[in-house]
């Protein structure tokens, strides 16, 4: 187990290092126009050069990278090229919206996908099971943006039940109001992710129905569905856990789009705005933070999976 965790930690370190090189490299493919845009169109070449020097953009790329990457190790993401404020503070503040949104979305996805997936497996030869499968297949093809727009159209505009834009200015001071404004965004991501989780759960549960332990329990007089719930669910749960790591990438991407659609002041919306402003330091910091979240959750899920599965635990020690 210890060896496994150490190996995974090493892979995480490699992943973060590769990510930092890629993020930094891609953003430097074009020489930065930031100095030019700060100086404005009337800026003389001398002014632009002075601004570039003050921002440290005139140093060799390797020095700039090492400076930035060294800061990352101390959780210092540098200062915004446009406003000069530290990036880390702003990122942390925005995570106060993005992380709850991603968490809620995951809860919605699990609540929708797993029980319905098991139900569809129990009924996989009946019309209701097939219908659930078709619904999930369609839902998995829906663009997140469109799912969000339809939910806004239905629950926001037509029925008027839930807020569709923005987040309380005082943040989580009034948890009820803050939560209400996250309901539709989380439903949007959660439903689409739930469709994917549904398909994994169903295929794992259908597989479990064929296993000897379920058939043995059924032979001893349990109904197949009870045998599945009693003996098959732990195995189904393991399969679901093993794909959760990959789903987190979907949650993060969903958050970027959904925050824009619902005007939520989260990390994704800030990223979209900063890309437009070409605020390279901020974009770098935001991309690294999102990537780190994906990789970190992937690691946690792998370790959890390893701990939960007795077969893997023995194989690894």
């Amino acid at each position: 187990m210890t060896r496994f965790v150490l190996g995974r930690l090493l892979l995480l370190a490699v992943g973060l290092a590769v990510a930092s090189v890629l993020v930094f490299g891609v953003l430097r493919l074009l020489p930065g126009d930031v100095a030019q845009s700060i100086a404005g169109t009337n800026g003389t070449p001398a002014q632009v050069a002075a601004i570039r020097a003050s921002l440290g953009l005139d140093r060799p790329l390797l020095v700039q990278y090492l400076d930035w990457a060294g800061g990352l190790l101390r959780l210092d993401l540098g200062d915004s090229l446009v406003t000069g404020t530290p990036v880390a503070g702003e990122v942390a503040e925005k995570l106060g919206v993005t992380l709850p949104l991603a968490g809620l979305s995951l809860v919605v996805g699990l609540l929708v996908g797993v029980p319905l997936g098991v139900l569809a497996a129990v009924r996989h030869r009946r019309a209701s099971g097939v219908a659930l499968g078709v619904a999930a297949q369609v839902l998995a093809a829906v663009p997140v943006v469109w799912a969000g727009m339809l939910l806004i159209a239905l629950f926001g505009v037509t029925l008027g039940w839930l807020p569709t834009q923005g987040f309380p200015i005082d943040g989580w001071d009034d948890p009820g109001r803050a939560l209400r404004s996250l309901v539709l965004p989380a439903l949007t991501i959660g439903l689409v992710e739930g469709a994917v989780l549904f398909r994994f759960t169903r295929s794992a549960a259908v597989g479990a129905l064929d296993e000897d332990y379920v058939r043995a329990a059924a032979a001893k007089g349990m109904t197949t569905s009870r045998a599945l719930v009693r003996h098959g669910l732990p195995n189904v749960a393991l399969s679901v856990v093993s794909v959760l790591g990959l789903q987190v990438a979907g949650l993060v991407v969903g958050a970027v789009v959904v925050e824009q659609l619902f005007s939520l002041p989260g990390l994704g919306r800030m990223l979209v705005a900063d890309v437009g402003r070409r605020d390279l330091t901020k974009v770098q910091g935001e991309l690294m933070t999102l990537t780190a979240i994906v990789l970190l959750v992937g690691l946690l899920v792998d370790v959890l999976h390893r701990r939960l599965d007795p077969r893997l635990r023995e194989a690894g020690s």
Partner: protein
Amino acid sequence: MSRGRGTLAGVLRRPAGAAAVAWLGLVAACALVSRVWTPLDPFTTDPYSAWAPPSAAHWAGTDAVGRDIASYLMAATGTTVVVAVSAGLVALVVGLGLAALGSLTARWVRDSVAVLIDVLVAFPTLLVAMALAAAFGGSLAVVVVAAGVGYGVTIARVSRAEIRRVLREDYVTAARAAGLGQLAVLRRHLLPNIAPVLVVQLSLAMATSILAEAGLSFLGYGASAETASWGRLLSDLQRYLGVHPWTVVWPGLAITLTVLALNLLGDAIRDAADPRLRTRTPVPTPEVTS
């Protein structure tokens, strides 16, 4: 060749496969026809007929500036086809290149490439696209490169495993023992055996790139205003969601049906090409949303 034809027949025999092929054929036909003809000009604005409901003149109604939505959607199929096909090709080249490096080279190279693939597969495509957009500004080329490279890594992972499996088969060992050279083994035994997997992955890559285009165009970093695109229309209509909530149904439906058709086509090819694959659990796509 006869094997490919048998697979095609198998796809068409399945209702879902036939429906998928029919829809994709319609999309391709629309893309071609829209080059020379659309019911109305997709970019002509007419303030007097803004927000017209669906009618004989405007099949799907009009938008805020009076553009005919049906004509616009039809013109936008061309964009979708170009994006999906180019992203699919990029993904195939990147995927096969990485997979070959990760399975046919010296041991230290292939092991390092394997680690690299494992690391890269965790990066969400949309974040890659945002990084490229920050450097180059948004464009459909950014969508194609990001979606192609993003999904290419998934293809690399899947086909690397497949290549290694095939290379261990007895018939490959036998062919080598009989004196067949490396290239001949690749051509005669490897390619035909991994082709079904590649075709399936190609259709999934195209589906992913269409979703990516919709997401990025919505964020403002995909298709430009002069290019008709389903994602672009979604983002145009979003501003009026409070007043005309249900016009967004049309572009969304077009995207969903096309992505669905590509997913179903992938499933049908997998089932038709290799019955053994049917019982296998689906390969997790790293990112279905965008």
